[in-house]
């Protein structure tokens, strides 16, 4: 049925243009290598108070790699609350946390729609677990707090999908950024927390050939490594020395439990580094 | 593959070897789920349905949209619920049909079926005995081969009986159809009882549910075109089929009751396969 009220585009499908890669190399790409030390995380920019209308807000940016085509991670977080719950909801003796994580449609290589898809809801659940441990919930009965994170740029290499196929490793980086920025925004909103939470990612990677031994790196960029054997994202409270959320995915032999333990410890180390930036930024906010 | 109705008038045999007035094999069990208030499992031919009833319980927060409800919610506009509210939730599994098809929760056909089942049950259950409460009926469709609404109503009835909710009588449901399509305009077309999937797609049919062995019709759903002259015949055959279904359901309930009295209690977690046929 022709829709005559609107001006429509052509009815058939159009094939999007396919761009040639940089350089004329077809068969063997110049493998990107990680130029940071294995224990160095990327530089971060964190600022609170960017949205005046919200109770608290923060903006986080990870530096983009020097190589072209690799974008950084840009996140914006707003916190609304504590505010009273609607009348219809049952009594709750502690604060009701609701998290909402959304990639902007233009943030990743594949366009995402306007409605949250299951992977974004999953990120929201991880974030909720991470923050619930930090917030002192029973000081705010009958209240709710909403944490809304928009991922403006998703830390993806344009050619990533050719190598890895799925975006899980990028999501781990995004999650760690979400945790850090949410923690800053919560502090900006004045919600009581036992400690600051920061996120950190560590991965077990294998570079170039199969013979090289796998090594553990902090804050991995998936396109810089040939194969990622496993990665974990940790939300860590530095002063209490406790982990509120752990997400590990990969394929490790169960007999070698030390490998797993080292990976988590590296994740905690990455989180500690991130926390230093967080504390410094909050110090500036207060001052 | 179009339904081959050539043998219908000759040998009066359908594709699955039944005659015009034969029901498919109905197999039912109650108390299949130990943790629920009432539960049942029903097979009408290859249509397999599980039902779990919770209630009567305290009403939860008011839900809009996705749940079919009848009774207290719809009745009084004054806000006081004089009757219990019957909430029905139908989940049609993706693997239930031959092609895997996922239906979202907001699917209109599903919502309509939920509402129909809720109204059917609310007509028979003594909901005036439980004001300000809700009875939740969860139906899971494991396999579909025609007569889905009828199977759902029967399973819900059995589960309510198992849950011990007082009711006037069984709500027994069944489908009926006609041997030739509307387009053929065949005046001498015979009615058929209990349609399977192939027949449902090709031939006009209706679903009818009666209150027990009486002729009182609780549900009548006909979504296909049929001549008015054939309608009465189909309805009569359907009502007769419902009486047979009611007898089967009653037998299942009595047998289970007899076993429970004999054994004193029922073992938990018995499997579908080792529950014996009557």
């Amino acid at each position, binding site marked *: 049925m022709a829709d005559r009220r609107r001006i429509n585009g052509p009815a058939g499908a159009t094939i999007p243009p396919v761009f040639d890669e940089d350089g004329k190399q077809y068969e063997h790409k110049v493998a990107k290598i990680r130029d940071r030390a294995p224990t160095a995380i990327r530089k971060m920019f964190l600022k609170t108070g960017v949205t005046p209308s919200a109770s608290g807000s923060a903006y986080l940016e990870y530096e983009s790699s020097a190589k072209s085509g690799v974008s950084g991670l840009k996140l914006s977080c707003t916190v609304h609350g504590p505010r009273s719950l609607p009348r219809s909801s049952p009594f709750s003796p502690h604060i009701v946390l609701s998290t909402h994580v959304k990639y902007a449609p233009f943030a990743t290589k594949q366009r995402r729609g306007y409605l949250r898809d299951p992977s974004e809801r999953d990120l929201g659940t991880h974030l909720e677990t991470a923050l619930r441990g930090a917030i002192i919930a029973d000081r705010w009965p009958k209240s709710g707090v909403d944490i809304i994170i928009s991922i403006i740029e998703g830390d993806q290499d344009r050619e990533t999908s050719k190598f890895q196929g799925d975006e899980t490793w990028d999501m781990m980086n995004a999650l760690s950024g979400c945790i850090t920025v949410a923690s800053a925004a919560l502090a900006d909103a004045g919600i009581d927390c036992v400690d600051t939470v920061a996120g950190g990612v560590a991965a077990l990677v294998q570079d170039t050939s199969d013979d090289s031994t796998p090594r553990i790196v902090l804050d991995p960029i998936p396109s810089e490594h040939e194969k990622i054997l496993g990665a974990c994202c940790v939300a860590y409270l530095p002063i209490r020395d406790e982990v509120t959320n752990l997400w590990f995915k990969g394929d490790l032999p*169960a007999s070698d439990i030390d490998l797993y333990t080292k990976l988590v410890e590296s994740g905690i180390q990455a989180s500690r580094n991130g926390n230093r930036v967080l504390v410094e930024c909050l110090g500036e906010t207060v001052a | 593959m179009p339904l081959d109705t050539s043998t219908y008038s000759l040998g009066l045999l359908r594709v699955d070897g039944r005659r015009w007035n034969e029901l498919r094999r109905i197999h039912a069990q109650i108390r299949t789920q130990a943790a629920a208030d009432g539960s049942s499992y029903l097979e009408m031919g290859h249509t397999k349905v599980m039902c779990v009833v919770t209630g009567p319980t305290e009403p939860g927060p008011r839900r809009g949209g996705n749940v079919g409800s009848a009774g207290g919610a719809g009745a009084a506009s004054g806000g006081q619920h004089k009757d219990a509210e019957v909430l029905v939730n139908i989940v049609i599994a993706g693997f239930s049909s031959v092609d895997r098809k996922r239906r979202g*929760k907001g699917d209109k056909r599903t919502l309509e079926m939920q509402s129909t089942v809720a109204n059917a049950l609310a007509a028979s259950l003594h909901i005036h005995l439980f004001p300000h409460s809700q009875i939740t009926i969860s139906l899971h469709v494991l396999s579909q081969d025609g007569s889905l609404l009828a199977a759902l109503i029967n399973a819900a009835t059995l589960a309510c009986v198992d849950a011990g909710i007082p009711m006037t009588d069984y709500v027994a449901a069944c489908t009926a159809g006609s041997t030739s399509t509307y387009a053929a305009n065949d005046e001498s077309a015979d009615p058929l009882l209990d349609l399977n999937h192939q027949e449902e797609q090709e031939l006009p049919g209706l679903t009818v549910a009666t209150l027990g062995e009486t002729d009182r019709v609780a549900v009548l759903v006909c979504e296909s075109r049929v001549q008015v002259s054939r309608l009465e015949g189909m309805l009569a055959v359907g009502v007769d089929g419902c009486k047979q279904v009611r007898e089967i359901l009653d037998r299942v309930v009595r047998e289970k009751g007899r076993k429970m009295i004999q054994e004193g209690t029922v073992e938990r977690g018995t499997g579908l396969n080792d529950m014996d046929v009557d």
Partner: protein
Amino acid sequence: MASQQHVLLSPAELAYLHDSLSLTPPLRPDGRSPTQYRPLSAETGILPGTNGSARICFADGTEAIVGVKAEVEKTRRKWDDDTIYDENKEETREEAEGAEGSSDWVELTVEIPGFRDDDSSTVFLAAMLSEALLADGGFVRRLVINRRFHWKVYLDILLISPPLSYPLPLLSLTTHLALLSTRLPRLKSEGDEDPFFDDDWAAAPYLYPRSSNKKVLARPPVTLLVMAVGNNIIFDPAKEELAVADVALAVSVGDVSSSSSSSSSEGEEDVDMTAEEQEGRKLRLLSIRTVDPPSRLTPPGVPNATNSAYGHAQVGEGGKTKQQMPEARAAESEAVEGVWKPPRGGAKALVMAALVQKTLQRGGVADEVFDALEGVDLG
């Protein structure tokens, strides 16, 4: 999320449960040992219209049914596959591409009565289960038919009973069994032509193949729920036990036996296999997620010292309020023995590592669960 289940326990009951689970050895409400699982009944092949199906009932009445259906789908070629027709490179290409799969060849949906599909708890469960399945990439490799076609597998998980306890272990075990019993029609076509299959269902091979002596060579993963209270590690927690957990983890474990046993030296290989089987399986750690325990959402208890119902002096007299204030603050932050407080903060990294280690150790819980599931007859 576990956090959304309403566990109606009073602070006194929670304190009692927490204390009894913190003892050495822990006293569980039903008297089980810390690594003992509740009895369950399992059956497979209950739905003849599916490629594989399973149903598991736990002793507390929770029940789940999983059905697996597979459809043939055309493989979407990546847009840089110009070299696919290069004759010289054909072998390496085949090796490289035939071995790969894509995570969207598996579609997993979880349906829980009373919850919407986009509810966070449902999404978390679906994500956890599919993550475990896709973690090592081995599963999708089995789905390749030829270079142009593959199987797309749909896993529909239904929770039949109302969600009384955290359904993750139940759903995971049922999925495991359903996948074990899944059969795909036997391929009769050859090479890259349009696939056609044998009509004989009895000739259909299992998705997870068995070796000559009926031993399963590789298995789908299993997700176990493990929790810690104080210094104790407890497996298969019931909902009351989960309500007082300090930390709870969902750990996905896979089992890959040596799949390199070729037909040439089978005699020798079999002997080696049995020796290794006797030693135990080769377990792989596939994924771990922290589960938010419902203990954080429980109401806190009020110690008698600050409870006005127990004769504590009323607020009102000016001098006394100042005295009461530091008491109230202390009562809020310090733990009073016997008074339940929802846990704050997280868990120590060492505690979590201990949880994982206990799950994975040889002859431990993961091995037992795999053994038990092996015993289920796959009709």
